[in-house]
C-alpha cells in the first residue's frame, strides 16, 4: 500500500481534534469534536470550513481562452466556449460509451481555464488531458502549491466579506481573484453542500493563517468529510464513484441540465465529445433508467448497495441504492439510486432489502433540502 499523503493543514486538523481517515490517497478529517450531526446542522444554519485540498486544481492555458475552451469541448459535453469570463460551470469528462470519467468544475479566467477535479480521479484526468491537449499546444498544469478550502453555509458570505469585502458582489458560480491578507486567492461562489458559499484556492504558505482567521469567527466551525457527505446527499448532488461512474450516462444521472443547448443535437457545437451518440439517444428517447431520490419509510437508513424491488414479495431486482444515510436536516433517512424509467416518478413506492427484509421506500424529488444559492 502506498503512503497516504498529508494535507498542508494536517497539523491544524489534529489541533482541532479531527479524526483522520484515509480517503483518495490522503489522510483526511472525517469529523472534528462536534461530530457529524452537529457539523452538518452548523453548516446549514451558520458556516462550515472544509479542507478539500485533496482535490485536483488544474490550469489549462494556450494562446487564448477560446483555444482551450474549444479543445476541451472535445472531452466535455459542456458549453465551455460560451462561458463568460469570470463564470464557472459544472461538467464531466465522458468516455466512448457516454459514461462519466469524472465530474468537475471549470472556470473562464480570462486567458485560461481553471478546473477542479476529484481527488481519486485527478491523476487519470491530468494524464488524459495532457495526452489529448498538449499535442494541440495547450498546457496542462497541475497546481500543487495551493490548498483548497470551502466555506459553506448561509453566513459564509458575511464571514468571508470581513476578510475580502469584494466577495459581497459575487453571485453563485462567479469566480474572482482577490487579495486576502496579502495572499492571491482564487475564489468561486460555489460548493457542494446545497448552501451558499465559496471555494477558495490559497497559496500553501498562507493557508494556515487564512484557515485560522476564518475559524476565529464564532460563526465558523471546521467540518469533516462525514458531514460533507450528508450535506451533498441531502442537496441531491452526485458523489463520483458512487452515484456516477463510467457505467452511468449524464442523462441517466439526471445531469442533462449541465449539457447546454449549444452541445445538444441541433445546437451550434453539437456532439463532438466521447459517447455523444449514446448520450444523444438517451436525450431523444429518454434513458432506460434514472437516478432518483429515495425516502425510506421508518428510521433505518438504506445505504449504498441496498437492492431495490418493485414489490414486497421481491422478484427480480430493479435497482440499487448508490448513496444513502441519515439526513440530519431532513431528520430521516435519505438515499439516491438508479431505477428503470417506469419506476422513476416521485411518489412511486418501491422496496429496499435491508438485513434480509424488504422495507418500503418512496421515490422522492431531489434535492431533499432546498438549495440556498445566491443567484
Amino acid at each position, binding site marked *: 500500500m502506498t503512503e497516504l499523503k498529508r494535507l498542508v493543514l494536517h497539523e491544524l486538523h489534529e489541533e482541532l481534534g479531527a479524526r483522520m481517515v484515509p480517503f483518495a490517497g490522503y489522510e483526511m478529517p472525517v469529523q472534528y469534536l462536534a461530530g457529524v450531526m452537529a457539523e452538518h446542522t452548523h453548516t446549514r444554519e451558520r458556516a462550515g470550513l472544509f479542507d478539500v485540498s485533496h482535490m485536483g486544481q488544474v490550469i489549462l492555458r494556450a494562446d487564448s481562452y477560446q483555444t482551450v475552451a474549444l479543445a476541451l469541448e472535445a472531452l466535455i459535453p459542456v458549453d465551455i466556449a460560451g462561458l463568460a469570463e469570470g463564470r464557472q460551470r459544472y461538467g464531466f469528462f465522458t468516455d466512448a460509451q457516454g459514461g462519466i470519467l469524472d465530474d468537475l468544475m471549470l472556470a473562464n479566467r480570462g486567458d485560461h481555464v481553471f478546473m477542479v477535479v476529484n481527488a481519486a480521479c485527478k491523476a487519470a484526468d491530468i494524464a488524459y488531458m495532457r495526452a489529448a491537449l498538449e499535442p494541440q499546444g495547450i498546457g496542462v498544469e497541475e497546481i500543487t502549491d495551493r490548498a483548497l478550502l470551502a466555506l459553506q453555509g448561509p453566513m459564509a458570505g458575511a464571514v468571508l466579506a470581513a476578510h475580502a469585502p469584494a466577495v459581497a458582489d459575487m453571485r453563485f458560480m462567479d469566480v474572482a481573484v482577490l487579495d486576502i491578507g496579502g495572499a492571491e486567492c482564487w475564489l468561486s461562489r460555489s460548493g457542494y453542500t446545497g448552501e451558499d458559499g465559496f471555494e477558495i484556492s490559497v497559496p500553501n504558505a498562507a493557508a494556515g493563517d487564512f484557515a485560522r482567521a476564518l475559524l476565529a469567527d464564532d460563526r465558523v466551525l471546521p467540518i469533516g468529510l*462525514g458531514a460533507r457527505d450528508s450535506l451533498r446527499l441531502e442537496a441531491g448532488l452526485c458523489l463520483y464513484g458512487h452515484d456516477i461512474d463510467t457505467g452511468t450516462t449524464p442523462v441517466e444521472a439526471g445531469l442533462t441540465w449541465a449539457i447546454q443547448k449549444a452541445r445538444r443535437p441541433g445546437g451550434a457545437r453539437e456532439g463532438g465529445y466521447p459517447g455523444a451518440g449514446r448520450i444523444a439517444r438517451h436525450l431523444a428517447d429518454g434513458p432506460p433508467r434514472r437516478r432518483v431520490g429515495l425516502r425510506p419509510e421508518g*428510521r433505518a437508513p438504506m445505504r449504498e448497495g441496498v437492492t431495490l424491488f418493485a414489490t414486497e414479495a421481491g422478484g427480480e431486482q430493479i435497482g440499487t441504492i448508490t448513496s444513502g444515510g441519515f439526513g440530519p436536516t431532513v431528520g430521516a433517512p435519505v438515499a439516491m439510486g438508479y431505477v428503470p424509467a417506469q419506476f422513476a416518478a416521485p411518489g412511486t413506492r418501491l422496496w429496499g432489502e435491508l438485513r434480509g427484509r424488504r422495507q418500503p421506500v418512496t421515490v422522492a424529488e431531489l434535492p431533499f433540502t432546498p438549495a440556498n444559492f445566491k443567484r
Partner: protein
Amino acid sequence: MKFTEDHEWLRVEDDLVVVGITEHASTQLGDVVFVELPEVGTRVAAGDEIVVIESVKAASDIVAPVDGEIVEVNEAIVDEPGKVNEDPLGEAWFFKLKVEDMDEIDKFMDEDAYNDFVG
C-alpha cells in the same frame, strides 16, 4: 459493572443482566440515528447479533453477551436514538437478559481491565 470485548457493559440487577454499550463504543460510532431491538421473549445465544445500531457513519450489530432470554427492551432509545450518545452508561441501556448461568458474567472484564483493553 462488567465489560465485554464487543464494547458492551453488563450490570447485574437481581437475576437479570442489563446490557448497554460503552462510552468508547458510542464515541466511535458517532451520532446514533437508528436502533432496532429484539422482541421480548426471544431466546438468544452468546454471540447472536440481536440489536442493529446505525450511526450517521455506519451500521453495526450488538451481540448477546451470554445465553439467555430477552425480558425487557428499552423502547426509549428506539424513539430517541440520540440518547445512546448522551447517556450510554445510564438511560440508554439496550435490553435486559434473564441469564441461565450468572457465573458466566464473572468472566468479563472489570472497568480497569476494559480501560486497558481500549487503551
